[in-house]
């Protein structure tokens, strides 16, 4: 697995660039990841990213868009507005988590 430099830190990622070590993530890194995929972080973006981080801790897997709506309370429509086109993957990437595994 590659190690790359993000925000001045050595970070483990997979072949696609998703972080592979939960504890290597911090907000500075998230900002850099967001910039790389042309997402400008606002408080609404952070709310979702923080939900994903917390949810992963208890569930052991990345929340799907559906779960971000039903448990995180952010409607799917809003997710598409904040992270256009591919919200689930973009949110996971910025949150330093694996891509969601669930189909729905």
């Amino acid at each position, binding site marked *: 697995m590659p190690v790359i430099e993000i925000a001045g830190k050595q970070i483990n990622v997979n072949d696609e660039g998703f972080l592979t070590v939960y504890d290597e993530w911090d907000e500075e890194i998230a900002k850099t990841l967001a910039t790389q995929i042309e997402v400008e972080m606002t408080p609404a973006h952070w709310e979702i990213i923080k939900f994903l981080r917390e949810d992963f801790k208890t569930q052991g897997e990345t929340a799907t868009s559906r779960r971000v709506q039903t448990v995180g309370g952010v409607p799917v429509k809003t997710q598409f507005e904040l992270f256009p*086109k591919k919200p689930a993957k973009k949110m996971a990437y910025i949150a330093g988590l694996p891509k969601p595994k669930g189909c729905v």
Partner: protein
Amino acid sequence: MTTSPSIVPNFGSESSDRKLAIICSKGNLDMAYPGLILANAALGEGVDTMIFFTFWGFDMITKSRMNDLQFSPAGNTAMHLPGSDMHIPQSVMPAPGMTAIATKMLKKQIADLDVPEVPDFLDQIVAAGGHLWACRMSADMNKLTMNELRDDVEGIISASDFIEMTEGAQLLFI
């Protein structure tokens, strides 16, 4: 340990023109889901997605019926007892109450996976940018108008209208 050059996932360009058209022609609970799951997945990948409801698939968007789709194990030789390879004999499938029991079981299995019921699922698909269209011939046969359909159905259109509007799209018939 050496540092590799930066790796950024490819989330595709904003201007991707991939389109998917799904024709939902079945009104059984089990056959309602494949189209919805694929539509939802496509939308999550940034694919412009439209669903055309025809024949029995009309029940998925008819307000008075969409909450009451059912699953019957009759005629389904791939139906096993849950968690086993054992078949239930087809001869018992038409027994009274069997459809209700099977529907209840399937709904529970779907809910356990946090997959929404059909009307909720269509809400989510529309929220994600999906488009719903109803088939003219099915509407005429069933004597249904836009008033009886979900409010987010964009129109009742002919098969040729649908073919025209899905030019260049990949197509799934379910």
